[in-house]
């Protein structure tokens, strides 16, 4: 019987995946922008290009046939062109079968150009795969984990909306409040309403804000030497508060990881051996913390640094020195990594000492 049930579950999973794939291939009608599918590609000869820094690249022009999938022109085919380079920094080659967004080049809708590739199929399938993996390996725990992420995304979006209403004026206050809400919601979902929840929340907030305080203090003492806020990418408002806010929330997850780990392990010890001495409890907390500090720092370091790669390569190949490249592309990511690391390290003694006070243990 259970064998049969598994087959059913497998079939349902595969069906939802196939359904997602199918829907995102035929959903052109959902978009107000005209969508077409590439039905034929003809590539011209590649031309060699050498820029003023001595970089060589190949440029190719392709002639594409696009069959419209929505709008009044649905079903009709048009011919258009596209130029792509081998490096592809801001362009791409097109293949048959790809769906694309287009804009009309004239009012009579006889000429079109491609503006963007339609990518929803890829991201929907990827999200589906992650959900399936989480549910398969964790069952209901996977659902809780997904719920926690969704709840935090909602909080995050509300905060950004609020922040925009204020024209960025009280950004840091909004994110400070957000930090508290994030911490309470997430830790409540991980730990439940227990003593270790209180320990972990207080330790998380203390660790986060102390690290933030150290960051501000260092800025004052060094006169912000070396830091260029102009290097913050994609800013529609003052870059400084955005960067400071990102410093505040960047390490929050890692610090919560740590505080929930340490506090629940220590609570377990108190349950198993109620006669444990307070001092011993503190030392156990420090030992657990020491083991996880290194890998946790690495997680954030890799996230913050890998993101800077395309810009760094562009800087290097446009004749900038290593120092200039580092300052303008990697400096901010490095600062974020360091402040996060400081928060992660300082949280270890904080959690251990708070556990000693609130989880018990012999005096």
């Amino acid at each position, binding site marked *: 019987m259970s064998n049969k049930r598994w087959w059913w579950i497998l079939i349902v999973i595969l069906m939802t995946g196939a359904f997602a794939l199918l829907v995102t291939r035929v959903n052109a009608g*959902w978009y107000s922008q005209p969508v077409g599918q590439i039905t034929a590609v003809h590539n011209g000869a590649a031309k060699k290009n050498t820029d*003023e*820094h001595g970089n060589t*690249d190949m440029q190719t022009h392709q002639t594409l046939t696009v069959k419209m999938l929505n709008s009044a022109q649905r079903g009709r085919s048009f011919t258009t062109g596209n130029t792509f380079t081998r*490096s*592809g920094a*801001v362009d791409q080659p097109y293949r048959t079968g790809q769906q694309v967004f287009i804009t009309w080049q004239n009012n009579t809708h006889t000429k079109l150009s491609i503006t*963007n590739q339609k990518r929803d199929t*890829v*991201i929907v399938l990827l999200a589906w795969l992650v959900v399936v*993996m*989480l549910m398969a*390996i*964790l069952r209901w725990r*996977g659902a809780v*984990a997904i719920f*926690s*992420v969704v709840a*935090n995304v909602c909080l995050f979006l509300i905060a950004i909306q609020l922040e*925009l209403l204020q024209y960025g004026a009280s950004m840091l206050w909004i994110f400070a409040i957000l930090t508290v809400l994030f911490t309470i919601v997430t830790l409540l979902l*991980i730990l439940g309403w227990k003593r270790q929840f209180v320990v972990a929340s207080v330790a998380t907030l203390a660790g986060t804000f102390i690290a933030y305080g150290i960051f501000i203090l260092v800025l004052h*003492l060094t006169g*912000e*030497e*070396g830091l260029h806020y102009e290097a*913050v*990418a*994609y*800013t*529609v*408002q003052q870059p400084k508060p955005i960067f400071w806010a*990102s410093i505040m*929330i*960047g390490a*929050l*997850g890692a610090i*919560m990881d740590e505080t929930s780990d340490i506090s629940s392990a220590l609570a377990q010890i108190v349950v198993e051996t109620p006669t444990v001495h307070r001092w011993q409890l503190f030392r156990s907390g420090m030992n657990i913390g020491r*083991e*996880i*500090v*290194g*890998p*946790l*720092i*690495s997680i954030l*370091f*890799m*996230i913050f*640094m*890998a993101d800077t*790669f395309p810009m*760094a*390569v562009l800087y290097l190949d*446009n004749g900038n020195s290593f120092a200039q490249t580092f300052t303008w592309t990697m400096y901010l990511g490095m*600062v*974020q990594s*360091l402040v996060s*690391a400081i928060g992660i*390290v300082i949280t270890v*003694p904080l959690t251990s000492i708070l556990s000693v006070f609130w989880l018990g243990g012999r005096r």
Partner: protein
Amino acid sequence: MDVISALGLVLLVLLVAVCGKSGLTIFFGLVLNFVLLFITVTLFGLGAPPIITTLLVSAVILAVIVFFSAAGNRVTRIAYVVSLAVMMVLCGLAWLIQYFANIQGFGNEVGEDIGGFSLLIGVPFGQIVVAILTLSALGAVAEASIAVTSGLFEVADTVPNITPSQLFADGQVIGGKIIGTALNTLFFGFFGSYLALFIWFVQLKYSPGLLLNDKLFISEAASVLLSTMGVVATVPLSTWVVSWSLRHGKADKKKKEVKE
């Protein structure tokens, strides 16, 4: 003194105060990984093939993260093998994502920031995407494999004659906790990294339809999802390798006993 040196100094002092000698190792590992990443970018700029370079550098970075951590020998050996295997699978998946979604280089949002630059530099940005997706997941995969492996060995030590199915059940419980918290680490890490971009999306009122097809958004989302997959896949794989090594260890011991 500039901001990075000052923060670095504070971190070094704190690490030594909290972790003692192993704090020095952790700090040294961090510096080493930074140097490795910088060399990688330089190699990309010089025209080295990004995916092969990334696979080689990742193997070294993983070694630094895993072996410089405070975990014991039998834990680190298994954690390294597991995270290496997961990293290779993720690299393959990243290649597939890039092949179908074409998320290389810079999105429309970058605008003036690259206005003065020559973009025809001959470096395959498509392969650099694969490199970024793989590298961003490395820390999370390494952390998860260390945590699951050391958790399972602890269980195996307290219950000496544990059966494989029992170990898998324990692995699921330990893994569940680790995945739950690791998801949060990743989530906030990425939000901290892309805060400016999210404000951009909200302020310019990107519709869901626009967002789900946007080059930049897709590449950030793919990064989070791929790292999550890496962490999730690490749990059963670590459990399987630990259980295999326990059975093997026992078999070896028995053989020795028989010989003696």
